[in-house]
């Protein structure tokens, strides 16, 4: 934990192209994307849970990307929240005030309401999508069952079975 606290929390500004690329998920890992905002209560409630998942599965083929839908000039507030959660995930903020256009670049069918959480396999398939609070246990089980590094043959199959 001390190591996590020592790590610098970073935010990166993104373009519409970056968001299109994020949706394609070409990084070779299972990807959890969390769209959130500083002013969104449920999002703030969930953020530490997602960071916990990243601490659990981040050493495997799993990535967590948080995307704040705050306006660009609200970045100091975004960073403050992320720092408070020791958010060592990849943290993105929008680069333009044209919020809807940027969010549509990620998902044209999304109404831009947060929280919006997606679990995307390394082949681009969405295996979980949630508007509103996630089901933490369901999400964990889906993560174990879909991680890109199936290095214990039989284990993923077990977690895909009920």
């Amino acid at each position, binding site marked *: 934990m*001390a190591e996590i606290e020592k790590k610098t929390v970073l935010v990166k500004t993104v373009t519409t192209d970056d968001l299109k690329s994020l949706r394609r998920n070409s990084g070779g890992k299972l990807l959890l994307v969390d769209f959130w905002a500083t002013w969104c209560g449920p999002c703030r409630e969930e953020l*530490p849970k997602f960071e916990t998942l990243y601490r659990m599965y981040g050493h495997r083929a799993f990535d967590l990307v948080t995307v704040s839908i705050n306006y660009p000039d609200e970045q100091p507030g975004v960073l403050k929240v992320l720092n408070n959660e020791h958010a060592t995930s990849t943290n993105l903020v929008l680069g333009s005030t044209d919020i809807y256009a940027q969010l549509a670049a990620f998902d044209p069918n999304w109404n831009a309401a947060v929280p919006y959480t997606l679990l995307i396999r390394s082949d681009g398939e969405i295996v979980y999508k949630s508007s509103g609070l996630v089901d933490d246990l369901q999400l964990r089980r889906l993560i174990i069952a879909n991680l890109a590094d199936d290095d214990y043959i039989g284990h993923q199959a077990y977690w895909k079975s009920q």
Partner: protein
Amino acid sequence: MNALSLVALKGSVMGAFRPAGGNYVRSGAALLCVVFSLLIAAEENGENHPILPIGSPAPDFCLPGVDGTTHCLKDYAVSKVLVIAFICNHCPTSQLYETRIKQLAEDYKQKGVALVAIEPNNPDAVELNEMGYTDVGDSLEEMKIRAEYRHFNFPYLYDGETQKVSTAYGPSATPHLFIFDSERKLRYEGRVDNNVREPLITRRDARKAIDALLAGNPVSVPKHLRLVARPSGFTRRQDERRRWRKLKRKRFS
């Protein structure tokens, strides 16, 4: 992270293994999870926790179960055979054996065999980065979640608080079975079978032992997969552990 090393003496290829992630050991075809919190306790107390020798009487226990009641050794006095299975939540090998242990309990229930599972790990000893293959950790509350999700058909008891029962039995890994005869003398200890991958199993050691006991015969191979754990340099500063605990609590808030 730690210099904990293990040597498999029986049941597979001999050799020393360095656990990846601190608690997994690949030994031949078998991957086991070490009951490593016991090792920490052993080191901190300067004590050893040997595996219960064959022929020993069953150490007594009274432990809380996921069903909300307390289960004691004497509750199973009428059973012809008693199987004590040390399993846990976070270990992927233990998970892979859940189905087989359920089947074991089911198949032998009518024959007078009782199966009781005990979770030996202290949940605080399992750090978040050691939970990469699990949905939940090893606390009693989380055991309830697992038992319900996987429809456990056996009592699942929590010994993570004091680990006294686990220290008395001395499981070296999960899963680790201890099988007692009608007089509650230990007649078999070790693995469930000889392959984690079910289609490759050629010997179901636990079933062989139970069958022998039910038939009034001696168990042909009374020990299997004995692991000797040699803890060294495995300490964790108390303040560091408290910080992890705090972080873990946060996740359920």
